[in-house]
């Protein structure tokens, strides 16, 4: 506001710091709807307070203003080490060489958790780390803007960052009270700055010779502006609220045709397509292996698709509940005591599969030995991570082996109730072939169980053929209505088609259904560890199968896909006689290798083959880093060029043109490393400059004299209006003199003058005595 900013006292700085801190803390509250709990906020507030008040302390110790942000960065690093460094730190706060890889891991984990978690996200350490880091950096930005640049109005920009984020992620955006408080905190900062500035200007006015002596009243009501301030704030916010409420919403669908739902914090997975791709892989990749006593060969569920929208199967989005830790999972839905169920432990070692869903048999009661934060989803009992993935996990799952009898299934009461309604929902536009097929297959069956068995045996009949290639060739890959209808015509497909068809047919028949995606039981090897057979599961064991709900038993898997997996005993027509041993069927044998190159982007369900992706990402990231570095490197040159063009504009317009020309000449000389005394008169400076090599030439020396005389006349002579001729002469002399300045400088020196203009450094240095522009 005023060019003459007086130095502030410590108390004034402290007041500004406190107001800035309040702004940052309140603004970060806006993230509340995204993150569950409040611990993360206290952490952020702690980091922000430490950084900002630390910076205030540095200023109190008279650290140069330009170094304070660096000092604050160091403080931020120390604080992060204190909170997150754990055992790697030295004396709790000093980071060691081990700390930085740890931070890197946390950062990577945060990227994953942002991709994987639904809102409200759980503040796992990785997420907290990134929040703390972000808020710390914002705090430093705010601090620099408020205290170093002294433009608190601009502090709105960093403070807006946490406020903007929720709007992009959740529909309702940040909460209104958070916004109002943020606005109030911002206005408070402005108010504090105004007061501090007035005080400082009032107190520091005496040292200027020209300044007036001001004798203020002995005492003035201290809270003089309080009512006004409060009133103005209230009126402003009220007006804003009314305006915001009365503004019609321009729907983005009209404007852009796309939804505003962001991809982060979502589960952007198209499981079926990826599953098909993995199955078509010519060479299987080992996914994981497990050791099961009791000769258990369960299917391993990764995720469960329960929502059918006509075009695709999907997962009902639900935020992770921080209470759903995996040490104790609930009993599966619908299971009552009559069904025989035993808990069996199973040890699983992940080889190459990288996904955020944990392969587990359904239903699992507990999981031990996991690293990272894993939580179960209610209903499906699938387990997913918010900050890590399955890479390198080694864990023990205790699962419930249910053995329902056909009699129990057959006697299951018809399902009802709203709980299961989503599992029965079918879109209205069901193609006729589906309902006809459902009618013909299940018409004769009395109970839902019999209908289910009939559907399974219909799909397993000879009329259907297993092929991973046919759907792709015919163009009906996936699980939507069109695909199912086409599949029912062509009768050729793979597990995705069989599973989705059976699920849809079951829904047509009134049986709640869903699809589980995961792995079949795998292939037993000869290796035994501790008497337990090791069983390998690879990418060709990826599978999808329908699960149907029977009251009293719960979700029961079926196996409609011919030639894959194992058919459960209870689902055979006339079941109950003999236990079927698992029939491992490597997928490669059932279909010819397609010869397609492995260019499928690995979206997490298959084995890791992400080398090329990583390289791409590296290039991309590297490009950004290089770009940023280039921007940072040329920023001074750009600033200097802008300054020069501004002065040239002043010369052209005739606003104290000689002054501008002289300033530019002096700055150019300074850029080249000529050390001119800041207090030197133009004459003195010209004498110093004239000794340079370039000014031995008469034309250059004359140009220098022209500039010198012009600036002397302008500064000390009577004010005159510059005419065109003199302006043109000035501009010409300036370019001549600047060219002469560079004569004799080595090439490196010239580059340095352009890239690292020292005159800018001098400007930034506050001690530099700048002549005020309006001398009389």
């Amino acid at each position, binding site marked *: 506001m005023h060019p003459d900013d007086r130095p502030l006292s410590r108390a004034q700085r402290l007041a500004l710091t406190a107001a800035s801190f309040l702004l940052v803390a309140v603004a970060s509250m806006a993230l509340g709807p995204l993150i569950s709990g409040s611990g993360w906020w206290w952490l952020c507030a702690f980091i922000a307070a430490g950084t900002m008040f630390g910076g205030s302390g540095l200023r109190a110790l008279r650290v140069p203003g330009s170094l304070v942000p660096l000092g604050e960065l160091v403080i931020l690093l120390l604080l992060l080490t204190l909170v997150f460094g754990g055992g790697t730190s030295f004396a709790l706060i000093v980071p060691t060489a081990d700390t930085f890889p740890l931070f890197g891991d946390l950062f990577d984990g945060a990227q994953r958790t942002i991709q994987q978690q639904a809102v409200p996200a759980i503040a796992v350490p990785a997420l907290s780390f990134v929040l703390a880091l972000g808020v710390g950096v914002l705090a430093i930005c705010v601090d620099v803007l408020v205290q170093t640049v002294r433009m608190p109005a601009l502090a709105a920009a960093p403070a807006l960052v946490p*406020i903007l984020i929720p709007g992009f992620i959740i529909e309702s955006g940040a909460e209104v009270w958070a916004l109002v408080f*943020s606005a109030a905190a911002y206005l408070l900062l402005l108010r504090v700055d*105004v007061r501090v500035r007035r005080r400082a200007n009032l107190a520091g006015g005496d040292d200027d010779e020209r300044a007036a002596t001001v004798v203020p009243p002995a005492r*003035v009501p201290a809270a003089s502006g309080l009512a006004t301030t409060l009133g103005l704030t209230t009126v402003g916010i009220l007006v804003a609220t009314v305006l915001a409420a009365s*503004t019609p919403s321009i729907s*983005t669908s009209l*404007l852009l045709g796309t939804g505003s739902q962001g991809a982060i914090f979502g589960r952007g997975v198209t499981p079926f397509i990826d599953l098909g791709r993995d199955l078509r892989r010519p060479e299987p990749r080992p996914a994981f292996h497990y050791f099961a006593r009791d000769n258990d060969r369960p299917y391993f569920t990764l995720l469960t698709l329960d929502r059918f929208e006509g075009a695709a199967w999907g997962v009902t989005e639900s935020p992770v509940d921080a209470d759903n830790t995996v040490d104790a999972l609930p009993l599966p839905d619908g299971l009552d005591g009559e069904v025989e169920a035993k808990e069996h432990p199973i040890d699983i070692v992940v080889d190459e599969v990288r996904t955020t869903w944990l392969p587990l048999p359904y239903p699992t009661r507990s999981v031990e030995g996991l690293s990272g934060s894993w939580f179960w989803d209610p209903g499906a009992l699938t387990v997913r991570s918010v900050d890590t993935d399955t890479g390198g996990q080694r864990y023990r799952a205790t699962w419930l082996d249910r053995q329902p009898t056909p009699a129990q299934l057959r006697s299951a009461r018809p399902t009802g109730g709203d709980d299961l309604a989503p599992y029965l929902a079918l879109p209205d536009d069901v193609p006729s072939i589906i309902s006809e097929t459902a009618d013909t297959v299940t018409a004769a069956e009395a109970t839902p169980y019999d209908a289910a068995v009939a559907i399974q045996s219909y799909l397993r009949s000879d009329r259907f053929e297993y092929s991973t290639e046919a759907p792709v060739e015919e163009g009906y890959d996936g699980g939507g209505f069109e695909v199912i209808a086409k599949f029912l015509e062509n009768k050729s497909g793979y597990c995705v088609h069989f599973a989705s068809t059976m699920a849809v047919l079951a829904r047509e028949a009134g049986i709640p259904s869903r699809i589980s995606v995961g792995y079949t039981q795998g292939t037993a090897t000869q290796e035994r560890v501790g008497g337990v057979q090791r069983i390998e599961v690879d990418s060709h064991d990826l599978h999808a199968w329908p699960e149907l709900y029977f009251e009293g038993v719960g979700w029961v898997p079926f196996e409609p896909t011919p030639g894959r997996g194992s058919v459960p005993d209870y689902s055979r027509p006339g079941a109950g006689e003999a236990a079927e041993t698992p029939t491992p069927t490597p997928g490669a044998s059932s279909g010819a290798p397609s010869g397609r190159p492995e260019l499928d982007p690995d979206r997490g369900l298959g084995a890791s083959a992400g080398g090329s992706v990583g390289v791409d990402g590296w290039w991309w990231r590297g490009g950004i880093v290089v770009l940023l570095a280039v921007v940072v490197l040329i920023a001074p040159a750009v600033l200097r060029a802008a300054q020069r063009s501004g002065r040239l504009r002043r010369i052209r317009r005739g606003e104290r043109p000689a002054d501008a020309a002289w300033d530019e000449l002096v700055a150019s000389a300074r850029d080249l490393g000529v050390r001119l005394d800041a207090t030197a008169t133009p004459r003195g400076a010209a004498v110093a400059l004239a000794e340079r090599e370039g000014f031995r030439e008469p034309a250059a020396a004359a140009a220098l004299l022209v500039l010198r005389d012009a600036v002397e006349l302008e500064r000390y002579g*009577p004010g005159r209006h510059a005419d065109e001729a003199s302006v043109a002469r000035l501009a010409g002399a300036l370019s001549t003199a600047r060219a002469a300045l560079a004569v004799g400088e080595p090439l490196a020196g010239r580059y340095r003058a352009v890239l690292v203009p020292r005159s800018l450094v001098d400007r930034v240095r506050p001690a530099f005595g700048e002549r005020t522009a309006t001398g009389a």
Partner: protein
Amino acid sequence: MQRLRPPRFAAWPRLTRRGGALLFVGVVLLAVSLWFDLRDIMLLAFVGIAMPGVAALFVALRAPKLGVTRTFTPPVVSAGSGASVAITVRNRARRTFDGAHWRDRVPEGLDAPPEAVLPAIGPYEGVLPSGDDTVHLEYRLRLPRRGVYGIGPLRVGVFDPFALARIDRDAGARHEVVVTPRVTPLERALGSAASVDGVLHGLQRRTHPNSDELIAREYRYGDPMRRVNWAATARRGELMVREEEQRGDPEVRILVDTTLAGRPRTGAFAHGNAEHGHAGFELGVEVVASIGVHLLERGFRVRCDPVADPARGSIATANSSGPYHMPGGDRLLLEDLARLEVANRDDAADRAPRGGGDRGEARAREARMPGFAVLVEPDERDAAGLVGLRQTIEPAIAFVAETVSHRVVEALEEADWRVVRVRRPASIGDAWAGIALRADVGAPGDGGERDASR
């Protein structure tokens, strides 16, 4: 020299840089919120848009009531020195007045202090004033040039509490400070005035032959010794002088070149402009001031006329017509000189049908008085006028600046004007001494006697 301008009243609130930035952020945010359909951000966007507006409305509606008084010490300032400006700002409202900056409006060319914070002023105290409703401001104003300057009104920039908007209001009235030309003290020990006086004495005696019979008065400092009425002195026992001298007050005439008619109208040699004064003219005014004050102090009545039109009256602008005389004449003279400006060219055109010589004759019947012409850039018509006046003036001394053309100088010298060159203000004393020297040559005895008597 007078730079009075009608006070400009900036009645519209303006957004400060901060307010502008906030408004900009608000608009950008609004665009973002509409584009991405972020209803939540819209609130903040409207805060950004509304706050500057509310602030502007606030400062526009809340007019301060301030009483401003301004005093100059000293009230009349000699050019080149400074005056101390004391401003008392009293809050006449019932509310505390806060959040303002002040700046005293001064004419261009003067150096008032930069805009500064006006401290908070307490509410008006009707009874038992404790002074909390008053702020005293004081600054030193350097006044380098002669003239009459209107100082004020006080420009009060009122901000809202967040400094988003400001409005500039003028408080109080404009006060004039008179900056008189610099007066160079002239050597009074020199005999110059004596020679003038001598001529005058004879003249007066001839005009009033019966003056001896008039009552004598007591001697006052500065009375010439020769006017001592020895008879009356003997009677009264103290030094008495002849009273008739009083009535026929010695009068001198100073002719000032105010039109600068000889100056080139345009082109590269037109140095300076009206705004910043004409160096030669300022020199001339200083010469007039120095001589005039000197002569007034010596008891003369001083008539100050423009060279271009000596008959049409003095340089005095308003209140004082006729010759200046003590007491108070020096102040009036200086004040009139402070207001003196280069006369308009139109005036110069008016005087075309003037018959300088005739009027000169007319004056000649009244008296032959001493005359000083101060010439800066006269044209030949001025010179002719002076030549015509020469017979009414004795002695006739012309102080000429360097800018006076040779032809004018020659014309004057031919008409027996004594031409003394003045180059710069510092040499006024020397120039005066120069005429004294020549006067001494002309009347050595007189001068010596007078010097001894003082």
